[in-house]
């Protein structure tokens, strides 16, 4: 048998260094593989999130379209029919028609109010300031709450795109509804101003505010507000629970304008 003359020193040296390099390479490729996997996961999550946002946007837009259609139908069809009925009854001089006139007037007013709340009619024609003013007037005349409105943006508020203006209108409508339902406030202060080269809005009431235990952030109303603001790429900051009353700042971005 041939004698083995291999150098044990070299064999051990090669084995040690070789194994070390092999293991180091294994760890390196394992990390690379993990990084690729996590990148793919992130991309998938991002795509899912974007898809979710697109779905939400589409839902909100179709909701607005539907509201507009119902509002228009109520105003044009039901409202017009009621007005016709009122005219026909005015031509009849019997006593029963006089008894029913106030009732029909009341129905016409209700239909108009519903129609307006479903689709603010002045938004396209007169802009956001006028439409908001009209909305706030209905609250002020009801007597329960006093809404103070201030616009420091001049005509910029009316230059907002239809989507943005409608979203802001809906947000303020929702906030007012929340104030009336939960805050027991007497006054509401709404202010439009310019911050960071863009329009910002503050909404404040003197009600009981958000308490730590009463998490309004997760309520349907707040979710709705969040979704609408996200749709127009606006951000918002809520008051801390320690602050008196409810306070929210909405900041539109350059993209929302």
């Amino acid at each position, binding site marked *: 048998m041939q004698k083995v003359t291999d150098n*044990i*020193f070299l*064999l*051990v*040296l090669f*084995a*040690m*260094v070789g*194994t*070390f390099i*092999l*293991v*180091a390479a*294994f*760890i390196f490729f*394992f*990390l690379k*593989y*993990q990084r690729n996997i*996590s990148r793919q996961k992130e991309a998938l999550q991002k795509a899912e999130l974007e898809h979710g946002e697109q779905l939400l946007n589409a839902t909100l837009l179709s909701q607005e379209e539907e509201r507009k259609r119902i509002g228009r139908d109520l105003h044009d069809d039901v409202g017009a029919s009621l007005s016709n009925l009122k005219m026909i009854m005015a031509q009849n001089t019997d006593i029963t028609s006089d008894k029913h006139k106030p009732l029909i007037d009341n129905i016409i007013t209700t239909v108009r109010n519903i129609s307006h709340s479903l689709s603010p009619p002045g938004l396209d024609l007169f802009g956001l300031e006028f439409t908001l003013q009209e909305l706030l007037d209905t609250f002020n005349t009801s007597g329960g709450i006093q809404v103070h409105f201030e616009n420091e943006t001049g005509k910029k508020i009316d230059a907002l795109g239809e989507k943005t203006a409608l979203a802001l209108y809906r947000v303020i409508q929702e906030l007012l509804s929340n104030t009336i339902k939960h805050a027991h406030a007497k006054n509401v202060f709404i202010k439009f101003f310019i911050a960071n080269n863009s329009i910002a809005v503050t909404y404040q009431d003197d009600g009981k505010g958000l308490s730590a235990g009463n998490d309004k952030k997760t309520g349907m109303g707040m979710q709705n507000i969040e979704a609408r603001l996200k749709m127009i790429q606006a951000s918002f900051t809520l008051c801390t629970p320690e602050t008196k009353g409810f306070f929210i700042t909405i900041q539109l971005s350059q993209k929302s304008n």
Partner: protein
Amino acid sequence: MNSKFFMSVLVPWSILLPVGIGLFKLNLLPKNARIIWYYLLVSAVINFAASFIGRRLHVNNLPLIHLYTAIEGVLFCWFYKTTLQAPKNSLLFRLLPVLFVLLCIINALFFQSIYTYSSYTRSLEAIMCILFALNYFARMATTNNSKKIILLPAFHFNTGIFLYFSGAFMLFVFSNFIFNLSDADYYIIWVIHAGFVLCMYLFFSTAFLLCKK
């Protein structure tokens, strides 16, 4: 750098780096990190004792390696039991440390004298740790981690152990053969081993730094 300084000063004293970081963050260390910290303490004490016995007293210090192997094996079993989240009553993790200590005793009594290198048990321990480390990587590859793997302390502990035991495995296997090599060759192999040890300590230090509440 002088290789003597590297092997007898820098590497032995470098253990103070992970021990120091671990001590600084002791309250923040999870259970598996604490086990590694205990291991480093035991390792530091035994290594310094071995160095003192060998260099100052000129007495064969190899009995200490038999003791060290048994303690190290048990501590790594415990570490992987925690890291791999084995069930409390896991038969493998209950039997393995006991079996390993028994094997160390049997080896010292009947196979390899305590005055020779415990190459059998040390190699066995290396295989055990390599398998545990591979198991950890397999789990990492198949589980969903919300955190980046590179930020996990356990990953760095495992990498340190895996690199060290894989690199040093052949040395453990042939440790009693290389006694016959020339002093220069013998020295080179142990310098490389010291490099692997330093690498493991650096990974342990990084892992301790990454430990958060």
